[in-house]
């Protein structure tokens, strides 16, 4: 009857868990009943076992990928904020730079990754640049929008009290843009990971310091499909952890004043 009533905390946690377990059970059953070969589709139990046995080596690879993703995200934050602030200083600068930021965003990373890998000497650096290119735009565009979204009345107030451009930026524009920036950051967090993986795929590097993407490729070549799935599971988990962490961060920062973080029953 009342389908739109909000769910309690426990059902909200349990519902996806039950659904996921059910899904895995059906998957396992189908694989067994139809005797699907392991190199086509391994069952969840086998994947879990592989995750257990190969876990150490896969976690090492995940750490390599995560390092690239985090470095790219940090660079995206610093340069994205910097560019957004620079563009908010003058409409001229914004008009001159924004189209190029858009071009960078719409160019498929797989298409330019080979070039970057050729140009940059260091493989870590080239992967970092690729991941950064993907993660950079949401922060720039969201923060730019936020910096321009200051309340008109407050803007008048700052003019009335003869605020310097620096004061207006610090006390009005930056706080206004904070929720926008954090929304961009949540998107960029996931994108940095995707960017790192895509770049690794294109680079296809071997050797000791290889990331998770290379392990996926390698497992694919060797038809170690359970290992491939195990790597995918790790990647998905890492993505979820990054998203949840950034979401919590956003909530913590905004909880005292922003609509998005306030309890709904007020």
């Amino acid at each position: 009857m009342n389908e739109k009533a909000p769910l309690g905390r426990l059902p909200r946690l349990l519902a996806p868990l039950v659904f996921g377990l059910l899904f895995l059970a059906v998957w396992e059953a189908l694989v067994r009943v139809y005797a699907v070969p392991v190199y086509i589709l391994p069952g969840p139990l086998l994947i879990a076992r592989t995750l257990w046995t190969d876990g150490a080596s896969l976690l090492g690879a995940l750490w390599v990928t995560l390092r690239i993703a985090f470095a790219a995200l940090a660079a995206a934050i610093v340069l994205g904020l910097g560019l957004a602030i620079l563009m908010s200083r003058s409409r001229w600068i914004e008009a001159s730079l924004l189209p190029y930021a858009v071009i960078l965003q719409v160019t498929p990373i797989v298409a330019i990754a080979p070039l970057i890998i050729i140009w940059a000497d260091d493989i870590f650096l080239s992967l970092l640049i690729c991941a950064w290119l993907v993660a950079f735009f949401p922060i720039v565009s969201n923060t730019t929008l936020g910096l321009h979204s200051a309340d008109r009345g407050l803007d008048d107030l700052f003019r009335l009290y003869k605020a310097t451009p620096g004061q207006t930026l610090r006390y009005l524009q930056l706080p206004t843009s904070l929720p926008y920036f954090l929304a961009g950051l949540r998107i960029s967090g996931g994108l940095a990971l995707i960017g790192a993986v895509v770049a690794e795929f294109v680079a296809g590097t071997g050797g000791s310091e290889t990331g998770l993407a290379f392990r996926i490729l390698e497992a694919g070549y060797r038809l170690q499909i359970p290992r491939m799935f195990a790597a995918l599971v790790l990647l998905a988990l890492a993505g979820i952890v990054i998203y949840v962490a950034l979401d919590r961060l956003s909530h913590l920062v905004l909880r005292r004043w922003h609509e998005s973080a306030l309890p709904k029953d007020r």
Partner: protein
Amino acid sequence: MTSPLLTLSGVGKVFANGVEALSGIDLTVNRGEFLALLGASGCGKSTLLRLIAGLAEPTSGTVRWADAQHERSGRLGFVFQDPTLMPWASVADNVYLPLRLAGMSREDAKPRIEEALAAVDLGEFAGAMPRELSGGMRMRVSIARAVVTRPEILLLDEPFAALDEPTRFKLNEDLLHLWRRHKLTVIFVTHSVFESVFLAERVIVMKRRPGRIATEIAVPLPAERAAGLRMSAEFGALCRTVSERLALATEAAAA
């Protein structure tokens, strides 16, 4: 006795889209007086206030301050139609803003902030966030912020229009109290006849298209005004006069 603080001569304002908002405004504002700008929506009252505040420049005429160097900043408080508080800052930080922009340290500003909040009965809410306050309380914070610089002149742009009547009455009385206590000069924009008569010593009635001064009416009520005044025959008669003049000005403009 009265000395002019501010003189507007032949002030006109044409917006970028060609709309003529104000035309030929001549007005002298005396030190320490409470002046109401009354008119229907779109008669340019808010624009006139923005010109006085220096938030916009007139396209013709001049706005001249008696004391040329004291122009605006710091000596002028402005209360907007909305409370326009910073939602991310506490009540005290919102009130601190004008002093912070003037370069005053938080320690030096503290007694001033406390004084301003006490003046609007919000002493206990210094640490609260704007969203935790009612509409009337937010407006009080806005007023505290406007007076924290100890301005000489206070400009208010229909500040109480969105509030319920009991809250509005209370804030009207508080504003009169502030005005007397701090010997402020007040220019109060409103579209309410009752509010203008209750508050002001002089009501300037405006008409629209373009915005001009239609007439001005002195309000010969005592400076000490309490809630009971609203029930008096004298108040009623004054409201009737102002109301008739306003209707005349509005009709004349519409014709």
